Each structure stands twice: as C-alpha cells, then as structure tokens.
C-alpha cells in the first residue's frame, strides 16, 4: 500500500515516514516541495494520503470527483463514523487522511493514529519552546523596566520590582504588561 505524505515540515514528516516505514506493507512517498496536492495524487497514484491540515491546497482534494469528473481517481476523506472522538483528536492535532482507492478500503486507522501521535508530540514540543521563549522575553522586559526605574527614579532594585507589582495588582494587569508600557512611555518621551 502506497502512502503519500503531504507535510512541508521536514522534521515532522521525516518522523512520520520513519514510523510508517516499520510496516513492510507500506511504501511512503513524500510530496515534493512546491508540488500541488492534486498533482501529486495524480502523478504518484497513492492509496492513502496523509495531509497536514495547515495546507491551503487541501481544498483541491475535497470533492475531486465533482470538479474532475472523468479522469480522476476517487479521493475520499477518511472518516471513522464509529469513533467521533478519534476524528476530533485527529482534527485538533492538525492531520487528516484520504483514501485514494475504490474498493476495498484499506485499513487506514492505524496509519492515521501514528500520524496523529507524532503531530501532537510535535505541536507539544513547539508550544513548550514558545512558552520558554515567552518566559525569557518577559523576564528581560521586566529587567529593562526595573533598570529604567532604578536610573530615573533612583529606586533600589527590590523597590522597583515592588513598584511594578503594586501597579499591576491595582490595575488587575500582568507585571510584564505594566513593564512594557513603562518602557514604551520612556521611548515616547525620548523621541
């Protein structure tokens, strides 16, 4: 069975391909960069297509029989009617799957399940990284605001922090928001 992998994220699609390659019955082919999804399905004639839902050209596979009436292979969205929770999980993870084969339908669910797991892990790693970056960024904004207060209002460092915290609490705002506003105001004054 031939699986076409349409995912421009090289690292993630590499991981999915690696996992699927463990099954000797599967041949994994990947979309070339800049190749459209419909073109690839036409040229490579896969049985199953795994698609990153962030792709805008996914619409080209939707209703392919309605636009290309005569020569196209039937392509249908894989949907497990008996397992809506799994479908929701796949959609939330950002991966969908199509069967590009008439009869009999291949057993797609294990393939999609493997992809979902990798897409989720990938997203988790990305979210963690972003959070770590945000925290670092917030720390540096607060430090810069403290430096402004120390220099301009001659506060001690603990007092500068207390000042920011008090201002945040009285306005039900986050300390980092108060800090970045302060920095912006200083820039405005200077300009």
């Amino acid at each position, binding site marked *: 069975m031939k699986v076409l992998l349409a995912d421009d994220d090289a690292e993630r699609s590499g991981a999915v391909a690696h996992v699927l390659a463990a099954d000797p019955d599967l041949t994994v082919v990947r979309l070339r960069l800049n190749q459209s999804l*419909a073109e690839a399905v036409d040229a490579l004639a896969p049985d199953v297509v795994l698609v990153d*839902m*962030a*792709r*805008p*050209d*996914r*619409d*080209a*596979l*939707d*209703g*392919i029989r*309605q*636009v*290309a*009436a*005569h020569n196209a292979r039937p392509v*249908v*969205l894989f*949907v497990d*009617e008996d397992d*809506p929770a799994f*479908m*929701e999980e796949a*959609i*939330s993870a950002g991966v*969908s799957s199509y069967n590009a084969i008439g009869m009999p339908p291949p057993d797609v669910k294990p393939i999609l399940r493997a992809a979902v797991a990798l897409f989720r892990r990938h997203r988790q790693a990305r979210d963690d990284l972003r959070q770590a970056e945000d925290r670092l960024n917030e720390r540096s904004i607060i430090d810069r605001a403290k430096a402004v207060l120390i220099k301009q209002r001659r506060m001690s460092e603990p007092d500068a922090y207390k000042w920011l915290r008090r201002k945040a609490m009285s306005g039900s705002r986050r300390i980092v928001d108060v800090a970045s506003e302060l920095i912006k105001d200083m820039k405005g004054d200077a300009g």
Partner: protein
Amino acid sequence: MSEPIRVGLLRLVDSAPIIVAQANGLFRNQGLDVQIHIEPSWSNIVDKLSYGVLDAAVMLPPLALAACAGLRGPKARLVVPLSLSQGGNAIVASNEAAVSLTENGAAPRLRLQEWLHLQQNRPRFAVVHAFSTHNLLLRYWLASGGVDPDRDIETVVIPPENVVEALAAGDITGFCAGAPWGDVAERQGVGRILIGTSLIWPFHPEKCLCASEAWADANPEQLNHLLRAVLRAQISCDRPEEAPAIAALLADPNGLGLPEEASRAALPGGSGAELIRFYTREAWFPARAHARWFLGQMQRWGWLEDQTDINALAAQVYRPDLLAPAVEGEGLYPAADLPALEGTAMLPMPDDEAFAPRGRNRS
C-alpha cells in the same frame, strides 16, 4: 461569561462582518466571548464544524449543503441561520480567450461553443472549491452557452490568492473567484472579467454563517446574541462611509492581512467590477429557495441522487426560524413576517430566461 464561542473564517473580504463585530466590541456588548480562528482552507472549516472543534464559521452555502447531504463523508449536521453576503464573484479569462470570446461585441457565453472548437486542449478553469457558489455559477453560465462542463472543459481547485498567478503562468484559461481577484487580474493585465456573477444571478447569496447543529441546539441564547452582533456588523459593513476603516481593519497584519486597496474596491461604494453587499436587499436572509437552487444544481450535475428530497434537506439546513428572535430583537424585521420573504421580488432567482440552459440538463 461562559465558554468562548469559536468562530472560523478564511482570509477573505466577505469575512468582514465577523472581524468588524470583534473589533468594534459588538460581541462583547452582547455578553459574548468570541474567539476567531483564521483557517487555511474550506475543508478545515467544515471538518472542524462537523467534529465540534469550531462552533460557527463563515461558510460557502453549497459546501454546508454538500456536507449535510453526505457528499464528503458521513452526513454532517450543520445549520445556516444567517446569510452573510451577496455577490462579489467574477468569471475571468486570459486576454487571448477574452479577445476571442468578446469578438463583435457579442455576449461571451454565446461565443463559447465556437471558441471551444478552436482550442487544441480542453480549456482549464479554476474555482476555489468544488462545492462553491463559484463552481455552480460558472457551470450554470457555461451550460447556458452550450458547454458541458464535465466534457468540454477541465476544472481545477486553486486557492483564490493564487488564481491570478496561475492565469499569468498559463496554467489555467480562466477562473471564477471572489473579490478582489477579478480586478487584480485586470489591473495586472493578465486577464479580463467576462461577467460578474451578479449579472447571472442578481443579488445572489455568497457566504453564510454556519453553525454546528449540536452547538446551536445546546446554546440557543448564545446563538441569538451571536446573530444580533453579526447583523449589527453587517449593517455597518454595508455603509460606503465605513468602507475605508473596514478595509484598513482587514489589512491588519495581525488579523487577515488583506491588500487594503483591493478590499476597498470590493466593499460598498468601491470601484470594483463586482461589489459585495452585506445587509441591504435582505442580504442577511437565509432563504430556503437559495438552498433549493444550490441543491438542484448539484442534482443537475449528478452529484446528488435524483431521489434526494431537496425540500427536506433545504429546510433541515437553512433555518430562518433561528434568526427570527434576533432580527425582531434588533428591531430590524418583524419575526412573523419572515416566512413571507421567501420567493419575493426582493430575493430574485437566477435569470433562467436570459441564461436558458443549453447544456446537459437532467431535471
């Protein structure tokens, strides 16, 4: 405040009512917390609505109907309680094709057959989605000129922001897409507008607001407030004097990031060939007659089986009854008079006389 309402949309000018409602605090005034999800494809919108990942979305009416008819998997349960916009699409051809199709000043559709005979390969037309207003109106127009859209031409699906590039590269002969892409093609000199779709079907419905039926059933109050906020936004989107501010809002790089000048041209009072309407001429009314026309066309092309009960499906999906409390609550229209709007001259149907089908007609 309860759970936020998740509303999906694409980067298109006709998403304006949702963007305006959010930016101007209309959702907040209704006590709603709305989360806007910008999606990359129509398929994402309909999949997320079907599996409860979105609660409501800006949608193509034929796609909502096709999903509920089971044309893209198991039958989805979606409702359309509001129409969002009318018009805005154009059928565009390459310069070479346009010259040949408009020879002697004739209506292009009357020259279609003759032009086809001169082509060595099947001309290729792009639409934004198989189940789109664009595809159904393009096919209707082609058939009125004696063209069989399944036999005589090839149809491909290309995201709207890429159609002009595809036309310039010679990958396609023409396209039917929403604003501003027809004007962009003309301005860049790569093609010409053959006809605006409002000439085929005056005041034709374009986008609708679609909700998951499960969400609408479980949250009637939230739905009512959502509809009231969007109706208010539609009214302001229809005011030409608001257009510059709305175009600027749509251009926000942290939002939709649309080309400002092109959006301005497509909004009310703009200079585009086809303008979008959001409220006047009852643009908000989800007429079941519109749903029946879309379903009838799907049957005509053999997508829907002949025995499909079109009336029942239209009534199941198109739900003006859900809109009634909102239009009355806003003092816009008496709820009791809504059903009588169906079939009035305010909401005309396609001009079958002018566009008499000469092509395959199964009905």
